[in-house]
């Protein structure tokens, strides 16, 4: 029988969706049974008490978790978030219920062995409950006690080679799409850049460095599967500078119905014969495509990289060959000023596609890192300019996007040493005044007063 009556939570199980309540109950039953005979380091009724305190919160209409804590692991200022409940006598199993953020692998590639090892640690030393994955992308281990933190950290780092993720006013765990490991659209090696920046900025990731949180995310192409444009302070999106590669024979195969459109994604239903005019050309947001005498023509200058035509006809169209990344700055979720999407600041940073050596090509990882530091120098230079500006000017708990809004795009561009360009302009100016700076005016502000007096008496 359940330790606590939970009629309000039980109702959450009645809907058509998978229920976290059912999951917690399942884990509570597993721990009560303890078929593996584990020497649980958390109270075995932790999940029952979690359900109990959640039921009470629904009943009272208020949270029973206190705010934050001082706990962590030695040398790190992130990755652990102290959580305590304010009813420890009634719910001793969750008196301390700390969260552990573990860095997720690049592209979220897991092996079964890795997941089993992770759960062996967590079943023993924590509640057994996880959140795969948190909003930033980490593996979230929910609920453990203070004495277990160093033990978990040791096992993660020494036995699994896995590090903690970021939390607090740190660089947060960078997240990427699977990139060129499995996706033909990827315009850069997302996992390589993500790993390189993670290793380069270890200090920023593990110890507080900033006015508030800071996130990197990497999308290999403008499809944006990681949605970096909305979820990260610095969003890296793969793109190309030259023309979309067109294979006219394959275009014809699509038109003739010999190749299934959209990679077969919609073939579960009869949508009728593929119509390139209706399904591709007319849907191009900039109208930059046309079918001329059976050949697909693209005015690439007008292309805004919406990816629709490439997604519909992947065998016929491919991203261009001159590949690189766009960097967008300042996206954030709504707390102050509402939600913001990233602003395009660096339209194109070229990534040399011939620099494609892997770790196995080097003596050790340090050598590989040196190679990558050179490859991605333009990116790290830009990142550090952004950080210098934000660290100097950002207010406490002010995200980069809020600082950009407060001080204006012009100031931001100056600070990150980017010349204003047409892509930075969202709409025609609404302010009729032009404020010149001294260095923009011939002769500056200074004048020779004697010279002036010759023509102007007092």
């Amino acid at each position, binding site marked *: 029988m359940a330790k606590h009556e939970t009629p309000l939570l039980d109702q959450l199980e009645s809907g058509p969706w998978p229920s976290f309540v059912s999951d917690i109950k399942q884990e509570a039953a597993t721990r009560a049974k303890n078929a593996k005979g584990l020497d649980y380091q958390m109270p075995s009724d932790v999940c029952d008490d979690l359900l109990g305190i959640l039921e009470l919160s629904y009943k009272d209409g208020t949270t029973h978790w206190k705010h934050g*804590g001082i706990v962590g692991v030695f040398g790190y200022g992130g990755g652990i978030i102290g959580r305590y409940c304010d009813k420890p006598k009634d719910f001793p199993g969750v008196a301390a219920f700390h969260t552990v953020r573990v860095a997720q692998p690049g592209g979220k590639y897991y092996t079964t062995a890795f997941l089993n090892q992770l759960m062996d640690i967590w079943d023993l030393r924590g509640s057994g409950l996880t959140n795969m994955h948190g909003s930033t992308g980490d593996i979230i281990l929910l609920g453990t006690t203070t004495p277990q933190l160093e033990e978990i950290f040791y096992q993660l780092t020494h036995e699994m080679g896995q590090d903690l993720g970021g939390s607090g006013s740190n660089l947060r765990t960078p997240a990427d799409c699977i990139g060129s490991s499995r996706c033909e659209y990827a315009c850069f090696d997302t996992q390589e850049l993500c790993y390189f920046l993670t290793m380069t900025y270890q200090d920023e990731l593990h110890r507080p460095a900033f006015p508030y949180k800071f996130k990197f995310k990497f999308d290999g192409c403008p499809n944006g599967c990681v949605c970096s444009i909305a979820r990260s302070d610095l969003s890296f999106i793969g793109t190309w500078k030259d023309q979309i590669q067109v294979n006219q024979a394959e275009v014809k195969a699509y038109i003739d119905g010999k190749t299934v459109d959209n990679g077969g994604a919609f073939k579960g239903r009869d949508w009728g014969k593929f119509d390139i005019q209706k399904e591709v050309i007319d849907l191009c947001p900039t109208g930059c495509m046309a079918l001329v005498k059976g050949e697909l023509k693209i005015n690439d200058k007008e292309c805004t990289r919406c990816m629709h035509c490439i997604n519909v006809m992947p065998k016929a169209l491919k991203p261009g060959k001159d590949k690189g990344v766009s960097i967008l700055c300042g996206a954030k979720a709504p707390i102050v000023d509402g939600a913001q999407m990233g602003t395009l600041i660096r339209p194109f940073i070229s990534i040399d596609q011939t620099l494609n050596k892997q770790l196995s090509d080097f003596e050790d990882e340090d050598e590989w890192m040196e190679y990558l530091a050179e490859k991605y120098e333009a990116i790290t230079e830009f990142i550090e300019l952004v950080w210098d500006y934000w*660290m100097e000017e950002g207010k406490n*708990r002010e995200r980069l996007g809020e600082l950009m809004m407060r001080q204006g795009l012009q100031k931001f561009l100056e600070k990150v040493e980017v010349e204003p360009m047409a892509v930075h302009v969202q709409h025609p100016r609404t302010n009729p005044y032009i404020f010149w700076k001294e260095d923009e005016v011939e002769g500056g502000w200074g004048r020779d007063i004697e010279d002036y007096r010759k023509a102007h008496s007092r």
Partner: protein
Amino acid sequence: MALDTAEAQKVIVENLEKKAKSKSKFYLKDFYSFFPEEKPRTVKKIVNDMVAQGILEYWSSGSTTMIGLKGTGKQAGAEGED
């Protein structure tokens, strides 16, 4: 001139002790104001080293980090973490 670490640590402890009656936790940016001539990165390194040495400690809500003298404030005692 490079910031002398021992001197900087002294300045930080003095400033935090001075404010201890009204406040036990500080944002990282508050520490920058103790050294207006220094780059934030330099101050950040000193503050993080002081945590490693056990002079200061972090407090985290999960989204924000604050820093204070180790053992100050109510939480350590209240949660049995002291």
